[in-house]
């Protein structure tokens, strides 16, 4: 695993000058992941904030070969790229070793792109799929996705007289991916560079499909100051709302255990999208949120042999 100094010397694959918002979690995750690649990388990108903000014609912020075609198909697209690479290797038309990575938002991964992802994982292409998870459709103006947590305000789960924001719990995509039995699956966060780089390195070295679900805050949608990004993301980990773990060849391992598990309310409190939950009449929702988190955390601890 490279040191921070060594990482800083690696070539910038996503260069400055892109138009993602100040304080956006996505480019932090992407730059760390790409810095972890010790060989050339080719990337595919699903439609979403990362894609539209990095390639406004005639400019591109990508220093590596990069392709975007549509929203739901980053996994299928990179599968095509990787298949061409295999075909060319077989015919002796190319000899470099290349890594392949696909980036999709939570919308492009949990929802509309789930089928293409599942197909590509099952077929066993050698590629890393990264879901940069900001827990809603941000590019289209903050609509709920199946990654949006319970109670969150979004423009399609607005807080009204009858409904208190999103009424469903989020789905557990990392477990769904792990159920494919692929060699490497991990959950990480853009605020912990060591954890993320370590996992990305493992993923790139995996001979087969690998997957990382990275929590990456969107301050526009989560409603916090751009300067608070790292803090807010890290709080999700400390509250065990977003546990850091990996599943390597079926073996679960917790990669970070908070010294003291903080109540979820601490995380809810720092984001405007949960403000309404702090009202006394919504107390039961905060409690339900805490229960969900506790249950999932316990299950995970068991899987990781920590309980």
């Amino acid at each position, binding site marked *: 695993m490279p040191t921070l100094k060594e990482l800083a010397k690696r070539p910038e694959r996503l260069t400055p000058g892109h138009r993602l918002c100040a304080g956006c979690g996505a480019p932090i995750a992407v730059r760390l992941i790409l810095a972890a690649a010790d060989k050339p990388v080719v990337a595919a990108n699903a439609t979403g904030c990362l894609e539209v903000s990095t390639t406004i*014609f005639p400019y591109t912020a990508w220093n590596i070969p990069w*392709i975007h075609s549509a929203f739901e198909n980053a996994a299928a697209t990179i599968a095509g*790229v990787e298949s061409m690479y295999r075909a060319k290797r077989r015919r002796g038309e190319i000899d470099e070793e290349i890594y392949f990575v696909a980036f999709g938002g939570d919308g492009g991964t949990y929802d509309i792109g789930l089928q293409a992802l599942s197909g590509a994982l099952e*077929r066993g292409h050698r590629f890393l799929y990264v879901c940069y998870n900001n827990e809603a459709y941000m590019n289209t103006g903050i609509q709920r996705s199946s990654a949006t947590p319970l109670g969150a305000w979004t423009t399609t789960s607005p807080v009204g007289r009858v409904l208190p924001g999103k009424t469903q719990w989020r789905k557990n995509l990392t477990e769904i991916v792990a159920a494919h039995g692929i060699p490497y699956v991990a959950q990480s966060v853009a605020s912990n560079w060591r954890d993320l780089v370590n996992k990305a390195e493992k993923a790139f070295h995996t001979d087969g499909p690998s997957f990382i679900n990275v929590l990456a805050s969107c301050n526009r949608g989560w409603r916090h100051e751009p300067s608070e990004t790292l803090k807010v993301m890290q709080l999700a980990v400390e509250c065990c709302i977003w546990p850091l773990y990996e599943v390597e060849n079926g073996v679960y391992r917790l990669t970070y255990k908070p010294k003291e598990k903080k109540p979820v309310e601490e995380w809810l409190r720092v984001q405007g999208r949960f403000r309404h939950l702090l009202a006394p009449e919504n107390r039961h929702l905060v409690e339900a949120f805490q229960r969900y988190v506790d249950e999932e955390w316990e299950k995970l601890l068991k899987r990781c042999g920590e309980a």
Partner: protein
Amino acid sequence: MKVMQERVSMGLNGNAAAAHAMRQINPHVVAAYPITPQTDCVERFAEFVSEGLVDTEFVTVESEHSALSACIGAAASGGRVMTATSSQGLALMWEMLYIAASMRLPIVMMVVNRALSGNINIHCDHSDTMGARDAGWIQLFSENAQEVYDNMIQAVRIAEDMRVRLPVMVTQDGFIISHAVERVELLGDEEVKTFVGPYKALYSLLDLQHPVTYGPLDLFDYYFEHKRSQIEAIDNCLPVIEEVGKEFGKLSGRFYGLLEEYRLADAEYAVVVLGSTCGTAKEAVDRLRDRGKKVGLLKIRCFRPFPKEQIIRALAPLKGVAVLDRSVTFGGFGGPVFTEIRSALYDVSPRPLIIDFYYGLGGRDIYVEDIEKAFARIEDVVRVGWVDKHIDYLGLRE
């Protein structure tokens, strides 16, 4: 070790003819998903892969949307790419069709024409490919299994020509061609290999020294100019399609143009048809000629780009034209072939009278007698001197 096959004549259906062409072309990547009536083609190709007769990376995707998405990724990575589909599969690809063409990727796709749902129907009509006619793909229609085979091989050359670099659809009528066994002459493996030549990569994602960005956000300041250049690109393909058709003719003895004129030179009336119905129409023309009628057929092989000049030249001298459309445009003014032919002839003076017939939807059979009826009608229209009914049906129970 692979044995190079010499020229042979075989009994093949359209799907098998396409699969053999794909085997001989030996593309780098094929990504496809099964659907009736195309399945047979994909299965046969899977056998070629399994027997080691091709070096192709065969990607057994989980949907047609992913099939074309994978083809796009693969084609942007600097190699030869093919796929095949039909009906609902093509409909599911719709979003990606435009993207493949806009990225100027020379993908070749075999489409077995089948009706679109609903209701679900597995038989032939042209609503699937006609629905995709504005997506920016070149579209070549085939009359029989031999033409399917020949078109597949030519399609590779057309798509990859440096003056073109666009995706090509080769179509064949569901069941009528795809499942009917005919005698098909295959070129030798080596001949096909030489004819298609090695793939010339442009802007490959695997060219690490020259990193490229495919599919950026293209706003009001550039998008329009990009569309303009795409319009020119597809319009400029016509001479290349003709050139390749001639060169293929020299090799095989089977020459191809954009259109085929059948007994049209001295004709007064013609039908305009695409696909397998051309065979039926030729029979009708022969029978009517035997009865002294001056009739002929204009077969459209290349529907996209639309060979407007050639069509005007072929049809302008006629008194009357009956267009046969195997797909409908709901709420429109006639089928897609009719509207374009009629529009192309607008500036001709004197102008032939033109009528349209919807026929064969959902696999409804079309008979020689139906086409004779179409000729009788256009003759009547010309006698009266004006069109009282622009759009009618053939083979429909009223």
